[in-house]
């Protein structure tokens, strides 16, 4: 099977969805780049290159560069979604929720319910997340919890290229507003990705590893740190269920609960600040629904409770690292 990067996989999904369905459009800042300029068009294809090639293939009517105007971008996507299109809007960085959040949580998320099921809002909001780029406090945040908490939104956070393609194709097909969270750190990672179109269902966790000593749930990029630790532990004979929910809303509670019922021990890892994050959420679900099976405290491994600092050493200290994950795991395993 061909090997593709996370970037290529999402790009391919967008290409295929646009080819198949003429109501799919892409809009956002720099989604092609070069609008109004003297040089070449499609100069960026998205600042991360994810939408590269869409403009030449589908034209300006369907690949729409916008001014810097996030509220209008998301609002326009929501309005278009209600009136016959399937927009894929891009927010360059998830950190920019703040300049358009009303259109996300008060508008797009609520239309279907608030209007008694008579409106549909089939749209995707792509946004990048994640620290590690030394991009500072306003371009490094993982705010997945801010959308996960909103009823009406679905939230997807793929951790590999294969999942990214299948989940993107599902997101575009889906009739609700889907927030598609791309971890910038993952764009150049690759794995086998079929050329054909395929979808992956929402709300179905993926087991990266299976084991019996511990359950580890991780969201976005930290999953890869978890895997490194899990493999190290495996060499010591400690085996873990390593679960990637893939979508935080809907959440595959069942997979997590079943695993904890077997292992009795849970560590949850994300790269959000610690208060009210996904780690808290999953922990609380397990503390409510699988309490009887729990044999140790549930440990959360998250980023620190501070804005993301610029200095590389501080940013590294801010992010959850393999050593943090490992020591949390060992604590939980050793608990009697």
């Amino acid at each position, binding site marked *: 099977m061909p090997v593709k990067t996370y970037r290529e996989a999402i790009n391919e999904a967008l290409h295929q969805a646009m080819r198949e369905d003429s109501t799919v459009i892409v809009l956002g800042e720099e989604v092609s780049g070069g609008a109004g300029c003297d040089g070449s068009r499609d100069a960026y294809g998205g600042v991360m290159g994810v939408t590269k090639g869409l403009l030449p293939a589908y034209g300006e009517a369907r690949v729409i560069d916008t001014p810097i105007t996030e509220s209008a971008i998301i609002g*326009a996507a929501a309005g278009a979604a209600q009136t016959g299109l399937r927009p894929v809007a891009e927010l360059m960085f998830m950190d920019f929720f703040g300049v358009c959040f009303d259109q996300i949580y008060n508008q797009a998320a609520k239309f279907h319910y608030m209007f008694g099921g008579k409106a549909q809002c089939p749209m995707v909001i792509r946004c990048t997340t994640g620290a590690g780029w030394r991009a500072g406090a306003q371009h490094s945040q993982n705010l997945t919890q801010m959308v996960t908490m909103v009823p009406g939104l679905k939230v997807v956070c793929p951790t590999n290229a294969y999942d990214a393609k299948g989940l993107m194709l599902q997101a575009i097909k889906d009739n609700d507003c889907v927030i598609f969270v791309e971890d910038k750190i993952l764009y150049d990672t690759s794995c086998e990705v079929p050329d054909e179109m395929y979808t992956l269902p929402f709300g179905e966790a993926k087991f990266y590893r299976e084991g019996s000593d511990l359950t580890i749930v991780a969201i976005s990029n930290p999953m890869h740190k978890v895997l490194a630790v899990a493999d190290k532990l495996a060499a010591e004979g400690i085996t873990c269920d390593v679960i990637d929910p893939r979508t935080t809303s809907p959440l595959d509670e069942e997979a997590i609960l079943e695993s904890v019922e077997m292992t009795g021990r849970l560590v949850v890892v994300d790269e959000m600040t610690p208060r009210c994050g996904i780690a808290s959420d999953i922990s609380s679900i397990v503390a409510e629904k699988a309490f009887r099976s729990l044999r140790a405290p549930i440990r959360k491994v998250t980023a620190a409770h501070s804005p993301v600092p610029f200095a590389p050493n501080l940013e590294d200290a801010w992010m959850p690292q393999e050593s943090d994950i490992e020591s949390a795991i060992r604590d939980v395993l050793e608990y009697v």
Partner: protein
Amino acid sequence: MSTDTNTLLKPKSTEQVLDSEQFLKAYRSMRTIRAFEDRISEQFMKGNIPGFLHLYSGQEAVAAGLCLLLNDDDYVISTHRGHGHCIAKGADVVAMMKEIMAKQGGLCDGKGGSMHIADFDKGMLGANAIVGGGPPIIVGAALSAKTLGTDRVGVAFGGDGSSNQGTTFEAMNLAVVLKLPAIFLFENNGYGEGTHARYAVGSKDIASRAQGFGMPAYQVDGTDLFAVYETCREAVAHCRAGKGPVTIEATVPRFKGHFEGDPQAYRGEKEVETLMKEQDCLVMARARAVKEKLVKAKDLDRIDQEVAELIDEATQAALAAPAPEDSELLKNVYSSDY
């Protein structure tokens, strides 16, 4: 129409261009709105309506005049003060009343209420309780029209107050950049809650501020159905011709409080009384149409009568209808089930 952005536009003529059939339609729409608002005000006082009401009374000529020019598949998006837009766009008054009374059979199954009333079959994309929430969304509806190659237009109603919200400006700029068939219709009733537009709109002039965004902008007396119609006719034609967005600022009186129950201490003495006496669009439209022999007074009387009956019927039906089943709570959070 000139697109010279340095001149505020007036419609080419405000001579009578409405024919009698259209006038009757508009009159019926205006009368229905007025009667509807009066009735729900009364029902609210009786405790039959939960939540908050913002009535459209006094502004009827704007919704009615514009919507004469729209088809069912054109789009409008509204504000917290949305009943008039909804009625003018053709929504079923019975289903509206049920919605506002939170009953089964309401337009939104009782989940929306006055501030979120919508009728997607009539292209009415919803009242919106976030000031400035609508304009970005109508840009999307206009984008659909352009992308799908229909000749539909999208109209975002907004108040003078909403004209100060950043989302409104962003929507205007994006509509210009993408040359979309969008109309930004600001009903300047002088007030955003208890703050006057002459204070809150720094430029004092919504139309010229909109014009600065690079689109033609009209100012029109929103109490004059004929003028509203003619202005909107030009604006809608401009949009349908693919020439991009238009702004209209219509000055109107607000007969009621910001919300039902508002003591309105901020208004001048006798201000409302005078407005109701001198600026009632229904009275003026009727007088002119009869005087110019466009229609007969008795035709209008008949409409008044029919409307009164309709409103009675709607009220009875809504009062009699059951509340939504509790089991509806978690229905329609998502389109698809998980």
